[in-house]
């Protein structure tokens, strides 16, 4: 609702909406520090509404106006005390100090780029000890181009200088794990520079942008915050008729559907299919949910011009059941939450049913014209990654392997026999630098098999990896069908001779495979080697983690207090411990 409202409405209703949204239960609090190169209050107010709608209550810190450098580098006490999770260095082209002078030659230009970017590198270095994620605006193109077209070419041109600085920032971000670039330049361009800048607001309030501009910046920043916390969508569920191809295949016949390059309409459907395939290639799952007979629906994807093939879909539901039932079935088949799904259908009635029946599913108003679908999906920023991990690029394959496993499972007398036959092997070890991105990502997005639902930033994970008072473990699992990747994480904290398990998570794609016993065996071995006599586990109930409720009891922990929402379990190691893993054959515990 917030995401679809215009800047005018939000400006007016901001305080009331904020009050309403703050009444929602279970808000996750995130501490965001703005280091302000201009007045950011309007952006922050919009950002707060957008995050509240997603169940996140931001707590803000604002540096003094234009003291973004000082508070990061020289006088950091107040910022340190705030303990930010995210520091947003909110600078813009107005904050560039070392513009190239008018006599700058081609060979001098690089020195200017280096000098200006070093000023920002000092900020990023200054923020490093905070252990927060640093989000840095790049620079939007200026409102004026003194040299016209030549401004993008001349070594003295500001357009040229900004482009070089932005390239330099991208290079820095690739080398610094805690630095993310917020593409202010892209946002301003998509709003249009004339509609983005407002000289009156700048002189009156030192505010960078128009209300529309501020709102677009806030939407982009909100998508980034959600991505940092792993709250991005995982699956695109697609209708078929008039969504992936033109026409109704059941009525018109498979030869008559519009797809390919022959007409403008067919080309538009082809372009949308290509876009979906690109999403899949970077790790977004595709599924079909269509009112059709399955056999006829499949023929559409066998059309010689179809870009998408049956194999590209991790789940295929074409039948006459209500679509919300099918979407629930897709979520459960893929082991993902309904809130990980985006549903695209040209039919407004179907969209409305899904919105009403499954409010957790994102249902963008894509309209009925396929040529607009991509724009609407892009504007929704549903699939924004912070980084692309190797896991992402392999994900669609892994889900397909899961489908093979399920088919295989049907051939066994009992479950034990099935587990035995999977020829599983695991690797369990303390956090390693190469896996920190994946560990952070898994922590951010695991909601179901998550005992405490605590979230950690990458910086926090990195700190835990080297903290001698913590025991951290990750687990990877391979079987005869393929590599499941890194799918489980434990974070324990030592207090005297007790280990408190602050976090235990596991990806649902390896549920009921015995992976938790491997993890516990490894954890106990590590505890014993460090003289720890008791492990204490916690289950903090949420709306999503019901399937982990019996976790500790099943592993032999004894319930010892707490209420139903916050249960405490103990495992006494002083009487010895019998390893519990049965089916996972070889495991490396380093």
């Amino acid at each position, binding site marked *: 609702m917030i995401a679809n409202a215009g*800047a*005018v409405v939000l*400006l*007016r*209703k*901001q*305080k*009331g909406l904020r*009050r309403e949204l703050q009444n929602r239960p279970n808000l996750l609090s995130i501490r965001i520090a703005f280091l302000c190169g201009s007045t950011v*209050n*309007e952006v922050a107010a919009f950002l707060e509404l957008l995050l509240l709608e997603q169940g996140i209550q931001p707590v803000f810190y604002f540096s003094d106006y234009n003291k973004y450098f000082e508070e990061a580098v020289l006088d950091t006490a107040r910022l340190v005390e705030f303990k930010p999770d995210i520091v947003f260095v909110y600078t813009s082209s107005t904050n560039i100090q070392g513009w190239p002078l008018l006599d700058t030659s081609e060979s001098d230009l690089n020195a200017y780029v280096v000098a200006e970017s070093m000023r920002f590198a000092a900020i990023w270095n200054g923020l490093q000890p905070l252990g927060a994620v640093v989000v840095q605006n790049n620079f939007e193109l200026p409102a004026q181009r003194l040299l016209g077209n030549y401004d993008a070419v001349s070594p003295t041109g500001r357009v040229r200088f900004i482009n070089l600085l932005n390239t330099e920032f991208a290079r820095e971000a690739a080398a610094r794990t805690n630095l993310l670039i917020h593409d202010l330049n892209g946002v301003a361009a998509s709003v249009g520079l004339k509609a983005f800048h407002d000289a*009156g*607001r700048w*002189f*009156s*309030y030192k*505010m960078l942008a128009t*209300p529309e501009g501020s709102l677009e910046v806030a939407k982009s920043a909100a998508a980034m915050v959600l991505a940092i916390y792993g709250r991005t969508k995982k699956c695109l569920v697609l209708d078929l008729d008039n969504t992936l191809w033109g026409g109704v295949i059941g009525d018109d016949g498979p030869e008559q559907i519009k797809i390919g390059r022959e007409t403008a309409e067919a080309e538009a459907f082809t372009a949308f299919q290509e876009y979906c395939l690109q999403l899949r290639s970077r790790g977004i799952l595709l599924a079909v949910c269509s009112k059709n007979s399955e056999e006829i629906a499949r023929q559409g994807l066998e059309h010689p011009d179809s870009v998408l093939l049956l194999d590209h879909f991790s789940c295929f539901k074409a039948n006459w059941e209500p679509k919300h039932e099918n979407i629930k079935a897709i979520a459960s088949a893929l082991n993902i939450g309904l809130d990980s799904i985006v549903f695209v259908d040209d039919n407004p009635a179907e969209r409305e049913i899904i919105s009403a029946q499954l409010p957790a599913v994102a249902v963008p108003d894509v309209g009925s014209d396929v040529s607009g679908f991509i724009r609407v999906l892009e504007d929704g920023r549903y699939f924004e990654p912070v980084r692309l991990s190797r896991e992402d690029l392999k994900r669609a394959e892994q889900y397909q392997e899961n489908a093979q496993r399920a088919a295989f499972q049907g051939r066994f007398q009992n479950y034990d026999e099935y587990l035995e036959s999977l020829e599983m092997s695991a690797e369990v070890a303390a956090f390693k630098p190469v896996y920190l991105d994946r560990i952070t990502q898994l922590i951010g997005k695991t909601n179901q098999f998550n005992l405490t639902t605590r979230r950690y930033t990458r910086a926090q994970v990195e700190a835990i990896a080297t903290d001698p008072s913590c025991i951290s473990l990750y687990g990877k699992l391979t079987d005869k069908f393929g590599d499941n990747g890194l799918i489980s994480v434990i974070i324990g904290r030592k207090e005297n001779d007790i280990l408190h398990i602050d976090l235990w998570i596991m990806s649902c794609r390896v549920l009921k495979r015995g992976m938790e016993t491997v993890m516990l065996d490894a954890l106990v071995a590590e505890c014993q080697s460090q003289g720890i006599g008791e492990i204490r586990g916690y289950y903090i109930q949420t709306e999503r983690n019901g399937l982990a409720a019996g976790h500790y009891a099943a592993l032999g922990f004894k319930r010892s207090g707490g209420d139903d929402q916050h249960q405490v379990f103990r495992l006494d190691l002083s009487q010895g411990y019998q390893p519990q893993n049965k089916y996972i054959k070889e495991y490396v515990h380093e």
Partner: protein
Amino acid sequence: MSDILAELQPIFRDVLDDPALQITRQSSAATVANWDSLAHINLVSAIEQEFHIRFSLSELAELKNVGDMIDLMEQKLAAK
């Protein structure tokens, strides 16, 4: 009682989040709760957008109370 005052009433109530607020021509930041500098920016921006008018820097600097704003708006709306 001008019509503009009546039209401003709900905008002030929304922006300042006070459904019972009664503004008058004499109301100003000094007399109305929550009318701080940020709320002021929101008020000006919301009014500009709702009425499709634009205040200049010098006009904004002259405003002392709601009455001043209404007079200025009347001029601008008449000139449209």
